[in-house]
């Protein structure tokens, strides 16, 4: 019977080790929450897609309306210019000269930028590290030129006595040897 009890215990331990009493519930709850999350995501996505489609349709209408308006405005301009003698020529000339000036100015600015860039490209990069290196050198030289602090002097003396003692010990040991 002892072996039977051991076998049952083994199954219990094995079962507990494999899953634990609460895992099933945890997985079921997690699955439930997950499915609710996915449903919510799905709903959000549907709303998002609907909103995007509605926006796109509205924007397309706006573009078409603006294109039509432009055609209408151009017609009105022509009609208006016919009303007054000389207006059409004045209108054409004023717009043409304004466009020319704007284009010429833009071309000048672009040429200037290109020229500046070309000149900059001819310049090799200067060694900016030199100053830093010199500063470091100054620091080192200053360190050498300042008198040592009390702590530094004490450290030197301790080290000096240690070494001296070691040398004396070694000499004594050598002398003691037969």
């Amino acid at each position, binding site marked *: 019977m002892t*072996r*039977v009890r*051991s*076998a*049952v215990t*083994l*199954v*219990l331990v*094995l*079962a*507990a080790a*494999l*899953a*634990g*009493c*609460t*895992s*099933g*519930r945890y*997985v079921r709850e*997690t*699955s439930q929450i*997950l499915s609710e*999350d*996915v449903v919510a*995501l799905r709903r959000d996505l549907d709303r*998002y*897609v609907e909103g*995007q489609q509605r926006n*796109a349709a509205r924007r397309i209408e*706006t*573009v078409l309306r*603006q*294109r039509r308006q*432009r055609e209408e*405005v*151009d017609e*009105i*301009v022509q009609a*208006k*210019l016919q*009303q*007054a*003698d*000389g*207006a059409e020529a*004045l*209108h054409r*000339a*004023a*717009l043409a*000269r*304004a*466009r020319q*000036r*704007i284009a010429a100015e833009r071309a000048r600015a672009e040429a200037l930028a290109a020229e500046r860039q070309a000149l900059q490209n001819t310049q090799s990069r200067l060694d900016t590290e030199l100053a830093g290196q010199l*500063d470091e050198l*100054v*620091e080192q030289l*200053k360190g050498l030129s300042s008198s040592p602090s009390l702590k530094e002097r004490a450290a030197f003396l301790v080290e000096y006595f240690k070494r001296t003692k070691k040398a004396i010990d070694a000499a004594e040991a050598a002398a003691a040897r037969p």
Partner: protein
Amino acid sequence: MRFACRRGLVVAVSVAAVALAGCGVHLHNPGDAKQAQAALASYAKVDFDGAVATARSNSTQLARAEREALVNLTESLVAADLAAVLADAPASGDPPRGWLRVESEGLEVLGPLGILDGRSLRLAPTEDARRIANRLLRRDEQQERARIARERFDTMIRRYVRGTPPGTQKARCDYRPAPEDLAEQIPSPAEIAGRARPEGEPEAKWNFYRNIVVRACDVVRSEEAAADPATVLVKHEEFAALDARLKTLEATVRAEDVEARLLLDRLGAAKKALADAEARLAEATVQKQTAKAAADVAHLQEDVAKKAAALEAVVKESQALPFAAVLAKQELLQTILTNFRALGGADETGTSEGTRRLLALLKTYPDVAGPIRAADKPPVNLLLLELTAQRLEYQRLNAQLQADRDRLKILRGQRELMVQRATGWIRLVDAAEQLTVVDRLRAAPIAAVQAAAAQDQKARLAEVLDAYAEIRMRYDAPAAALAFDDDDRRRVLRFDLSDIALAAWKDFIRAPLQEVAAYHDGGLTSEDLANVIHAIGLGGIAVGVNR
């Protein structure tokens, strides 16, 4: 008897095994496992980025067409306005017609500056009016002078702050300093005149600062002020409002971008200083044997407390800036998790003194998850989840920062256009100065006046009309395009935020789904059970044999 005993054993064990299922023992179910794998496969196929990517690409295509249509329409409207100005008989109204429209538009732009002579398109006969007009007309030259002055100053200040020893005085020279930079500004020559050399400032540096740097900065400030159109145009309500928006956004971007990163550097340095102090203390505590060593430990404890207070101060400071706060929280979480890994155990997150301190600091952020704040030793998974949440928050703030940077460019463009428009109107006013037919222009269509005018007046009037066409063409269409860009940038930000939201969904669904699938994939199969029963059965036979 032996057989009955063995069969009894097997049945008992089988019943026990199956009964355990009721308590939650997980018996493998091939159907569930298949379904879980199918769910995992379906999830892998979900194109989370697809919906937003397609919407974004569609929107970009449409935006091009929209911008083009808007610019074309605006140019046509400019042409229509010019036609109306030329052909219509003058009449007041909204908008006015003929020459009165030109006057009305000019008054709208230049009137608030106080440089016009009454309600006409003429400069007031004062030196002040001419000076203001010249500042706008010669802005390019002035900007060049300001640039040269700034370059000279930069050379001086580099020389001052560098070297051994470096200069110790304030080194910021801003013409329009942000409120938080005011304390770091170089004083004016008048302010520094009576000051004695500050303690610790080498004499040579002080002389250089007082005589060279301060004066160079003064020149920079006055040249930059002269080059800044805001000093002239600020009287224009629309310009002042735009300039104020620009300043606010500049300050926001500086705080989000530069200051947040500087703060993060300080946080890193403070954290390292504290860790070093803690390490020194730990080492000294182990070695504590003599009275002197005990005194050292006390001193090191003080040092640790000081460094901890410094770190706490930086953390507190970061809480005022959302971008700095999110960066700081990530930094703290990463260090806590790294410490945890080094210690190697879920229960060890709060065991080291340093880690406990960092956890306490993390908990001071009000938006850190409640369970983390409530737990003395928060589980690692919770910290990892918080880190994921903070990374998403960082992405959100970063998207906002990119949008703000772009909007800053747009606002600067709009400001520049308003300056160009005012400059264009001053040119027109200069051209109109020579017109002697203004009274006739107020009574008859411009085209008619032009046809009847003397040759020189024809030329003058043509100049004025060219200037008017140029102002409208330079300003209207680009202004409409920039306003469109501003709206479109907000749209792009919404896409960015949708992308981040979907990435969050993706992360938060994947982890538990994988766990569920792994659970169903495992479990006690009938084969496993048969093996167990078989093993116990063998035990039973052995029992029988031994008996």
